[in-house]
């Protein structure tokens, strides 16, 4: 135990990362009860392995690595079911954006949750937490190119599911709808 210096014990800093760990866990599990279980398991594992944590390095990234490794090892144990849900769900339904081409947050999250977990993970780490590609690659234990391609595929898939890829889908092609809208209010110009 490194109590022989004035440096703060990284164990005391875990608490600061709890919100981020829960948010990351939620994006992996898509279920808040499962996310909390995952965070608890992660904390216990981190504690057992704190001697392997290099002080001065990024604690959050280290905790995220343990979290996602725990998640994937649970996933392998539970096998099929979860994977299948990904596969089946990914093929269903697309959410239409609102008429101004923007999407409600809840709709976005619903669509996001249909992506394969590797893509969700990469998108959240880089797109939301602000990790660099390099940090994300290290956290996930894969090459930078792999992270990049997961992000690209994830974005493309999101665009496809959100149906905001081509202008046609945002413009109202249905003439009846168009008529109602134009008569009912001033049409908001497509900002996309």
């Amino acid at each position, binding site marked *: 135990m490194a109590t022989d210096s004035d440096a703060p014990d990284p164990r005391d800093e875990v608490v600061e990362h709890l919100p981020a760990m*829960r948010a990351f866990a939620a994006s992996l599990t898509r279920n808040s009860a499962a996310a909390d279980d995952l965070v608890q398991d992660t*904390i216990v594992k981190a504690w057992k392995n704190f001697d392997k944590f290099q002080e001065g390095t990024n604690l959050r990234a280290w905790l995220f690595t343990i979290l996602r490794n725990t998640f994937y090892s649970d996933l392998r144990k539970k096998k099929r079911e979860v994977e299948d849900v990904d596969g089946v769900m990914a093929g269903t339904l697309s959410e239409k954006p609102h008429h101004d081409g923007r999407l409600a947050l809840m709709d976005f999250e619903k669509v996001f949750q249909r992506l394969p977990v590797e893509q969700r993970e990469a998108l959240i780490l880089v797109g939301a937490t602000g990790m660099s590609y390099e940090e994300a690659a290290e956290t996930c234990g894969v090459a930078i190119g792999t992270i990049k391609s997961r992000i690209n595929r994830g974005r493309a898939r999101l*665009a496809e599911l959100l149906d905001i890829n081509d202008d046609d889908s945002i413009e109202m092609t249905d003439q009846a709808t168009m008529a109602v809208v134009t008569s009912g209010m001033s049409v908001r110009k497509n900002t996309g």
Partner: protein
Amino acid sequence: MTDDKDKDNLEQQIDENLRKVFQRHLEEEVPDKFMDLLAQLKKADEKADEKGSAHGD
């Protein structure tokens, strides 16, 4: 109407939404059970330290 511009705009929208989704979870209150767990782990460490050699996974 250039494709590049659309793509940038799309990426921005996606990233903005990703941040919002993440932020929404970040702002959730952390349940007490996590603080309890951390306190327990810490206590266990202190006990182990007192015993000195006792160490097991």
